[in-house]
């Protein structure tokens, strides 16, 4: 019996196993791929399979590590890359703001609706996301094109005489991104807003606070974590977004996803593409840390 007990004491406890699974997952599908990308970013492009040089070699008991910083220096030499990063950040910031402005009233309305209607309203928000993103973006191409639904409708109304050029402009990209990412803003906001204690607003009203005042002094501060979660869920993926700008954007749409694509496919330069991706991750790590900290707070149940 003693032996069994001592063995079971040495064995990892059930809770460690349970905690270990997500860490193993993160290691396998986040850390490991990242280190591979990091490794390639220090290599040089080569005509070979795979098309880059070895970063480290192990020959005759000698371990040689060659870190080529040329790719990172190269990124700093051409203003294109900085412009692309800024373009992506601007696109992400504006889209996030638009999502918040449109999503907050929607989330608020759903949170205040009758319980039996809430389910239906949430389904209406979520249902479009069950269709592949590619198909939904293609549908927008049909709506926004020069002889598409929107222009046809406006011309039928007589508001415009010739079609508006919307497709292949930044405006189309904003429309596509806000449309696609709106659910990611609404759902965390709803989850937060639905928990609010209505009696706080009633108390404020009893004490003579205007609804406007109550909204900014009570609802918004309480919803802070929901707002941050929603914004991060929109902002972070939009920075690296590729599909929507590629399909709806025009030549003036300069985003890092496209530049990365060009380096990888057109220039056959996997190392420079990897360096671009590493720098992008570095830029995103600040909001990601903010997001994680906020999530941790939410988990603790503190508003």
């Amino acid at each position, binding site marked *: 019996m003693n032996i069994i007990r001592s063995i079971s004491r040495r064995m990892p406890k059930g809770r460690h196993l349970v905690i270990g699974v997500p860490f193993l997952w993160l290691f396998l599908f986040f850390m490991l791929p990242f280190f591979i990308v990091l490794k390639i970013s220090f290599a040089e*492009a080569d*005509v*070979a*399979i*795979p*098309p880059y040089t070895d970063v480290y070699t192990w020959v005759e008991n000698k371990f040689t590590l060659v870190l080529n910083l040329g790719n990172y220096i190269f990124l700093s030499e*051409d*203003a*294109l890359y900085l*412009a692309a990063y800024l373009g992506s950040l601007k696109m992400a910031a504006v889209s996030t703001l638009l999502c918040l402005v449109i999503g907050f009233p929607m989330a608020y309305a759903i949170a205040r609706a009758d319980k039996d209607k809430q389910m239906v309203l949430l389904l209406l928000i979520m249902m479009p996301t069950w269709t592949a993103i*590619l198909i939904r*973006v*293609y549908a927008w191409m049909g709506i926004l*094109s*020069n*002889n598409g639904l929107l222009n046809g409708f406006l011309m039928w109304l007589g508001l415009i005489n010739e079609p508006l050029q919307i497709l*292949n402009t930044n405006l189309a990209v904003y429309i596509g991104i806000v449309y696609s990412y709106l659910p990611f803003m609404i759902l965390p906001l709803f989850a937060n807003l639905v928990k609010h204690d209505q009696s706080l607003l009633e108390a404020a009203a009893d004490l003579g606070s205007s609804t406007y005042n109550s909204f900014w002094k009570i609802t918004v501060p309480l919803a802070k974590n929901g707002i941050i979660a929603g914004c991060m869920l929109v902002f972070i993926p939009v920075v690296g977004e*590729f*599909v929507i700008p*590629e*399909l709806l954007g*025009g*030549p*003036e*749409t*300069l985003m890092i996803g496209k*530049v990365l*694509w*060009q380096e*990888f*496919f*057109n*220039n*056959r*330069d996997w190392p420079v593409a990897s360096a671009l991706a590493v720098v992008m991750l570095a830029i995103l790590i600040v909001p990601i840390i903010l997001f994680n900290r906020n999530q941790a707070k939410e988990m603790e149940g503190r508003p």
Partner: protein
Amino acid sequence: MNTFGKTLLALSLAGAVVSAAHADDKVLHVYNWSDYIAEDTLDNFQKETGIKVVYDVFDSNETLEAKLLAGSSGYDIVVPSNPFLAKQIKAGVFQKLDKSKLPNWENLDKSLLKALDPSDPGNQYSIPYMWGTIGIGYNVDKVKAALGEDAPVNSWDLVFKPENIAKLKDCGVSFLDSPTEILPAALNYLGFKSDSTNAAELKKAEELFLSIRSSTSYFHSSKYIGDLANGNICVAIGYSGDLYQSKSRAEEAKNGVNISYSIPKEGAGSFFDMMAIPADAKNVEAAHVFLNYLMKPDVMANITNFVQFPNGNAAATPLVDEVLRNDPGIYPDAATMAKIYTFPDLPANAQRAMNRSWTKIKSGK
């Protein structure tokens, strides 16, 4: 060539198919361009040889290359265009063909094989499948309405002269989104060598494009097929086969759009799609049987009749539909042929310079 959406679909589908199929003597994995074979070719091949073909498609050289360079693509036959093939041969992607298993090699066009020698020295690794030119597809009526009866539809003047393209702006002009295939046209038009890597000459080509940039509707490598057919644009600089496809679509739709294709008289770029066997192919034997089958004149002529691209098989030409055979846009005459150039295997820095220049042309940055 980069149409992302279709590429993504093709990649994911292809990945699923390859992993699902297991290594079998009687199964051959072929990775070819989309819409690039006759409907009955694969069935006929299976009937004749008993080999089942698992056939996947891609729509850009870049997609194919990324798979090949990552290694273990799982395919027995792939079809890159010649400048890509040249790089891939150097990277060690392919194995040499066993010509003793390819008796139909004799049917191939000898002058064409010679022209392909720079891409594949000694024609050791590949056979030419189809080829085509990069020229002007245009909406006959709209271009005439904009530029008059004697619009220069058979010359690069149509799109490279700012005063001409400005008049076409309202009905729409598109260019392929492929710097290494389009910049040579500007270089050639300006009197430089089409394969020039000279920075000053490239700069001149860039300036030419910047001067017509504001009159250009968009740069894309496949969208123009539909847009030209339904009248959204009136001039498309694109691949000959695609533009013929656009013409057929307009005819089928009976929408009154009349499309024509011309190879500009100053000269045009050409691409050759080459069949080759990856070094790590599992079914090399069947791959040779397939290549040999495709080099049969009747098989090849049948494919050309279907896809409207000329093939690299001299013996097949008499069997091709008379309409296609006599169309100078598909089978160019000798004088035009003399002006057609091929795309070289550019050094990495020259390619980067072209791509960079292209980004500047498109985005202004």
